[in-house]
């Protein structure tokens, strides 16, 4: 099996087989990220395809410093961000602002029954702006200042979006685990 360095070398030379090999190795991990940032499968597929084109185009700039997967992940996230910005004007404001505030339910440490795929479904159900802020802050580790510049909102809005996103997620997680408990206890 060819190692990553040889695959990258082949991709740089424009070798289509090596490009496909790179895709096959990393597509499933990167597609999960695309789904995490996208509201529907079609959009996720677009992000994956555009992201891979950018990866191939920018491979020459990869300096072998740090994780290659991390470098690819950043490109995919940036592609998702561009897609979000291009569609931002299409998202209805009432999708976000008219949602009810979450009741302050305490965090339950016994959310062990949740699978990764369940978490993905929960996060994808978030309104686009909440989802984007939550992903950038909680998963990628950007600050509110950085997020405000990335998606052209104020820091206050970023904080507020994050807070609402957390509340929705918490409510859904509690609901999910509650249902599970009922199933386990035979209610």
């Amino acid at each position, binding site marked *: 099996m060819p190692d990553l360095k040889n695959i990258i070398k082949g991709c*740089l*030379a*424009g070798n*289509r087989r090596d*490009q*496909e090999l790179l*895709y*096959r190795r990393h*597509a*499933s*991990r990167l*597609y*999960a990220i695309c*789904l*995490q940032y996208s509201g529907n*499968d079609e959009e996720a*597929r677009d992000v*994956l*395809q*555009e992201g*891979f*084109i*950018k990866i*191939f*185009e*920018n*491979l*020459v700039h990869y300096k072998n410093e740090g994780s290659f997967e991390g470098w690819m992940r950043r490109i995919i996230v940036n592609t998702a961000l*561009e897609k979000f*910005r*291009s*569609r*931002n*004007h*299409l998202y209805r404001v009432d999708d976000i602002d008219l949602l009810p505030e979450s009741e302050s339910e*305490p*965090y339950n*440490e016994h*959310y062990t029954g*949740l*699978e*990764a*795929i369940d*978490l*993905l479904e929960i*996060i994808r159900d978030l309104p686009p702006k909440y989802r984007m802020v*939550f992903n950038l*802050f*909680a*998963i990628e580790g950007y600050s509110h200042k950085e997020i405000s510049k990335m*998606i*052209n909102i104020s820091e206050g809005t970023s904080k507020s979006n*994050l*807070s609402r996103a*957390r509340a929705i*997620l*918490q409510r859904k*997680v509690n609901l999910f685990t509650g249902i599970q408990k009922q199933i386990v206890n035979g209610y």
Partner: protein
Amino acid sequence: MDTSGANIDLLFRNGLKDLEVLPPIGAWANIRPVIRKKAGPFLFLRSAAMIAVLLSLSVIVYRYNRELQVSAENLMPAMNELSEQMLASNPAPPVLAFRENRRRETVPRREQAVINETVQLAENIISTDETGFPPATDNFSYSELISPPGRVSALYMTDIIRFSGTKEINDAESYVDNGKERSPRWSLSALASPIYYNGFAASGDDLSQQLMASEQARVSYSGGVGFAYKLSKKLSIQSGIYYASVGQEVAGISSYAGFQRYDYTKGDANFRVLTSSGTIYTNNSDVFLIDRSADRVLTAYTNDVFDPVKSELDYMNSSLQQSFSYIEMPVIIRYKLLNRVIDFNLIGGLSYNLLVNNSVYTTSDAGRLAVGKTEGLNPFTISSSLGMGMEYNFSDKISFNLEPTFRYYLNPFTNVPGLRTHPYSFGIFSGLSYRF
């Protein structure tokens, strides 16, 4: 301290960390092949190829010249022997005459000097009496007239048929002088060439280098008329007027048509695109531009306020074409390396180039769509040129010219601060010239 938020973050971060989902079937098929442009090595190879061509031609010319000299030198012993034999077998007065020379108008200066010296030598040695006979002396040798071999080799040996005394020698002298006067000094030529045009950034100019990584030269052309004046047997000066159309392709900029119905601005350029040649300003309000891989497009219609796909604009192309036209006035010096049926010349000089037109457009199957203009171009540039000219003479008046020429622009192509791109071009000019 509210830790519930942080905990829910942690839950999702850890939970999604290693998640993998198989992408839909067919996703790979829609990822177009990406072929990276290797600007650096490609530039090196092109330059190396051009130098190799010029060196090869020089070597060919040199070897051809050497072979002619060697073959002439090899003729010497045979000619000397022949002369002695003629003298022994025929005691009649030797006669020297020059056969009618079909190349009389192109006798090089060095050969004339040798002829003159030889004639002078003959006059000194042979003091003929009234009968035309040489004096009866043992010191005289015909081989002395012809020797030394190295010098006489420059003569057209086959032209020396017989010796006929002073009269013919004088004729030969006058023939040489008259030939010099008849040589045409002016020539008019018409030349054209496809041109491979490209540029490279000055060292340390990272911005130009980045921009040029996504730009590709396209084949351009140049043509015009020129006139030349012969300063001497080997040296001539040439000028004229040429028209050149050059250009490049800017990749990665997607263009769409049908934007006019969404454009509420009046007058100003909706989009600006930074290129290594200058900044493209759109003047067609129906055009929408987007750069999906970098940030070269400056516009108010950014991704977050307008989506050309959602708005159902007509996709045109993923690249823009920049086209520049110049009127060129070269001042070229030609040095003749070899004067034969095919002449070889070394060509070098400067050209003064005036920008007369620049346009930017995009193409699709439906045709060409004007986009705008490139601003910031230097309206006046100076280029240096170096080349090797081959000239095949059909007749005394008309010849066919073939001139591989390399050009380098001395001043930057653009006056935009921060960009220092020096273009170069390579073309093989061909055409006819008429001497008068």
